């Protein structure tokens, strides 16, 4: 174990409300001190962080690692390397692998494989129903013992409201949250784009806003009924955000996140059938995007995630509707969040909070904060470093990004996991 001194950086730790210029000392995988060096601290390595931001390692609540089942698209290793290059030290992966994460053995294997890489910490989200088929409950307690932090359907539909009710009751019984991406499967059936101006023009089949709001409405009523803890994933519409804002003001136990893609893009970005803009949920109107940004600023939306979905060229080089939905995102999460904060005039503490303390709270983990004596997961980034997104140079095996060519500011320079510098 090396003793590391991080010198001269601006320390931003939203969980502790810190934004100060202080050194950080790391020893034995833990944060040894903040400010002055502990007595007898022998520095093995000094990281000069002057001009840089030192913050807790980022926590991403949705990143697909493609194992098991889709290794030709990406592997745990390729994506773990991409994650730490993006400053991410903890991530939750949805259960929509092949087979889905509905068996404790699969979860244990994934955890084991991730641990042996010694890069990013992986927290699987277990399948809510067996095979994600929306009919039978999974062994949630067993899955939780194996390491699942929450339960979800991923993007698979759960059309039966009674099963949904039961999953909430059961998850609440064992004390785990249910994560749901709200979308009524019948109203969304066959759709690939927002029911708006662009889909009208391009002749694409649509997913109307009501597919999201009808589902949010059902879920909120069931939350009131069951008292379950529910997290709403990837909200896309102004109306759904309004519903969550109101539910929160009534004291309902709900939280929500958005993907970094939806903070910046809208239906117009599809332009001439750009399949990199084929996302789930669909990119909606400019008004919806503005509402997402406002919802983040006022705290209605808890966290920003990458919704990382690495795909290969063959998945995307197809007519828009046939192309696989999703975008690679691990390496863009930080700069896209900083871009929003800059444009919206939101403080760095608040913006970093959407990537650290808030997602950690959703996961029920003590990560995403810098406490003396706690595990040392850190991200050190240059907020002013300008770089241009070149999809072919991303470390992720998936080069599918709608942001190719965009100039961004901010890049992780060092990522520390468990006291080790795993990226620099």
């Amino acid at each position, binding site marked *: 174990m090396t003793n590391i001194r991080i010198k001269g950086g601006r320390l931003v730790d939203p969980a502790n409300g810190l934004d100060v210029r202080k050194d950080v000392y790391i020893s034995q995988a833990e944060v040894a001190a903040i400010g002055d060096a502990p007595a007898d601290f022998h520095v093995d390595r000094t990281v000069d962080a002057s001009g840089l931001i030192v913050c807790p390692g980022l926590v991403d609540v949705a990143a697909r690692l493609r194992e098991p089942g889709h290794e030709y698209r990406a592997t745990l290793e390729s994506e773990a390397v991409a994650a730490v290059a993006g400053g991410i030290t903890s991530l939750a992966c949805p259960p929509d692998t092949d087979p889905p994460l509905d068996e404790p053995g699969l979860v244990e294997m994934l955890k084991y494989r991730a641990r042996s890489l010694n890069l990013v910490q992986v927290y699987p989200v277990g399948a809510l129903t067996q095979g994600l088929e929306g009919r039978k409950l999974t062994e949630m307690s067993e899955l939780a013992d194996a390491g699942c932090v929450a339960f979800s359907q991923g993007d698979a539909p759960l059309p039966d409201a009674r099963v949904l009710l039961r999953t909430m009751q059961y998850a609440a019984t064992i004390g785990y949250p249910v994560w749901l991406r709200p979308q009524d499967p019948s109203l969304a059936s066959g759709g690939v784009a927002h*029911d*708006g*101006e662009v*889909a*009208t*023009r*391009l*002749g*694409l*089949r*649509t997913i*109307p806003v009501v597919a999201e709001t009808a589902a949010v409405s059902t879920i909120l009523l069931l939350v009131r009924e069951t008292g379950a803890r529910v997290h709403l994933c990837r909200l896309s519409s102004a109306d759904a955000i309004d519903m969550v804002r109101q539910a929160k003001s009534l004291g309902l136990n709900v939280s929500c996140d958005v993907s970094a893609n939806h903070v910046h893009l809208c239906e117009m*970005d599809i*332009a*001439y*059938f*750009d*399949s990199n803009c084929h996302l789930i949920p669909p990119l909606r109107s400019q008004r919806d995007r503005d509402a997402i940004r406002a919802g983040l600023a006022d705290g209605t939306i808890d966290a920003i995630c990458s919704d990382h979905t690495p795909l290969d060229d*063959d998945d995307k*080089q*197809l*007519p*828009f*509707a*046939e192309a696989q939905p999703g975008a690679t995102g691990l390496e863009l999460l930080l700069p896209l969040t900083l871009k929003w904060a800059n444009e919206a005039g939101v403080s760095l503490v608040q913006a970093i909070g959407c990537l650290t303390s808030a997602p950690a709270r959703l996961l029920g983990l003590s990560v995403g904060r810098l406490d003396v004596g706690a595990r040392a997961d850190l991200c050190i980034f240059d907020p002013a470093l300008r770089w241009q997104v070149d999809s072919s140079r991303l470390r992720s095996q998936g080069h599918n990004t709608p942001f190719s060519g965009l100039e961004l500011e901010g890049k992780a320079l060092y990522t520390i996991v468990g006291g080790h510098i795993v990226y620099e």
Partner: protein
Amino acid sequence: MNRDPQIDSNGKLVHLLSIEGIPRDTLIGILDTARSFVSVTEREIKKVPLLRGKSVFNLFFEPSTRTHTTFEIAAKRLSADVINLNVGSSSQSKGETLLDTVANLSAMHADMFVVRHSQSGAANLIASNVAPNIHVINAGDGSHAHPTQALLDIFTIRHYKKEFAGLRVAIVGDILHSRVARSQIHALTTLGVSEVRVIAPATLLPSHLSKMGVQVFRNMAEGLRDVDVVIMLRLQNERMNGELLPSAQEYFKNYGLTPEKLANARPDAIVMHPGPMNRGVEIDSSVADGRQSVILPQVTFGIAVRMAVMSILAGQS
């Protein structure tokens, strides 16, 4: 893909993928060129050597009779070599991707692809991935666009009505699924007709049509009042009864073009249909075959318009 792939950096039309984005002057230029080809098609020797030595590949991923045939005739009258591929029945069913099929055909030195595909955006995808000397003509992609159909429709309107300004045009039927309607709307609004109306039940209308510069009518008699041009759209069999419409009979009652409904239009109004027609579903035979119908001339003009498009694109090589 944030630039219109059919127009190059010098503003020249290098593919024909959609009417949207094509300037008015270019549209008029195509119509003028087509007019000169009408006389060719009426001559005894119906050939000109403009595309001699060029290979035109008709790439139909979806069945079509009329469009396929008229493209073939148009290419042959321009002296091109025409290769017909019904891809739906070969490569694609063997799992080859669309772009692999196109790459293979490009290796056979194709000069032009005429593409029909069931997916919106398929022609755009091909155009964005072919070598710069290859031209792509969209012969219909999903519900997106059917630009040569719209061009022959405006050619027909111009032939009978002379000027576009001051015209009221009504498009009736399944707008939601219609690539023809979308292309017609772009063409008519670009050419500055005074009013484009669409007439359909709410189940057959896309949500944001008014953004395309049209007036929406649910009632056919109101929608047809004083129009100069009535364009009927084909209603696909599979949509006649189900969640969109209760029955072909009820559709005909409300939206079928009968002499009584047509009487709301101007007395000199023309009636058009892109074909193939469903007599007794969207149009009454007495109207389809009546004095105001210009449905057969549309087909004839279609050849001249497709010759014009092919020769203009080939001229940009």
